[in-house]
């Protein structure tokens, strides 16, 4: 303890204070009139084991539902690729995959008609394939 601490302690003791009898009586009177606040009963709701099972099962069901929805959308994406060559998509797509995937899904998509340039392109490709096929037949002597 250094000098300052020692001096502070001594000086604190030099502050001469006492509780008067009157104050004592006042304090006792207020203590008698002040009833302790009743301790609130701590009610930690103990949950039954059934609750934990129920919440676990609910969580698992939710997880399966999310996985199922995710897989459904993936299947639709895969199925939609071979259908790209069709002249219409949307309703026809829903109709074509509906039997395998359950109830039809409302895509809220309008049927898109292929425009003339695209159709022309497809005809050109088919023509090129035919020409190539003919050339191959000639080359092998058929």
């Amino acid at each position: 303890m250094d000098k300052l601490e020692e001096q502070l302690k001594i000086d604190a003791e030099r502050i001469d204070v006492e509780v008067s009898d009157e104050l004592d009586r006042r304090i006792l009177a207020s203590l008698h009139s002040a009833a302790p606040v009743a301790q609130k009963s701590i009610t930690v709701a103990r949950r039954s084991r059934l609750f934990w099972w129920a919440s676990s099962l609910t969580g698992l069901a939710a997880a399966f539902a999310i996985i199922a929805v995710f897989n459904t959308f993936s299947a639709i994406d895969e199925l939609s690729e071979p259908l790209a060559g069709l002249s219409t998509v949307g309703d026809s797509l829903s109709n074509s995959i509906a039997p395998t995937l359950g109830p039809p899904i409302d895509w809220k998509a309008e049927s898109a008609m292929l425009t003339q340039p695209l159709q022309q392109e497809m005809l050109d490709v088919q023509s090129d394939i035919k020409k190539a096929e003919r050339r191959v037949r000639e080359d092998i002597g058929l």
Partner: protein
Amino acid sequence: MLTDEAKLIVAAQAGSVAAFANLVGRYRVKLLRFLLTRCANFADAEDVLQETLTAAFRYLHSYDSRWRFSTWLYRIAIRNAQKMRSDLVVDLGDEVNDVIDETSNPLTDCIAASETENLWISARRVLNDDVFAALWLRYAEDMSISDVSKALERPDSWTKVNLYRARKALSVELKRESDGAIACG
């Protein structure tokens, strides 16, 4: 095994006024001395002491035995003293300065005249309320840094820094006073 204080606390928690009076008997004078440093006058300090003990009795069930009982009591006392001061400000508005004379100090009435000035009077003059309280609790009440922090609802770092500053400020003040005394002598 329960200490005497712990036994008294248990009995007081069960509603025994006698046990509570016995329990706080050893703290009453110390608390009143401390409250004198935070109140405008002796009567206010007495009122705050009464309110503090009554509140402690009423809410004794919320006392956490991990704390020292004295720390818990001082915390209530500090809150009540602050409340009384703020109530006074609300009630009196601008006139509060006429009632609370910052230069007056109820401590001086309780200190016998002596050649050297009491250090706590100097401390009251140079330190603000909370720093003064930290210094008091640490050196007059022998509380640990952790207990001082709990009583003042401050982090330990605040207490350490401000105790260091308070000691430094007091040392400067003491040196200034001793230099002045030498010059006058």
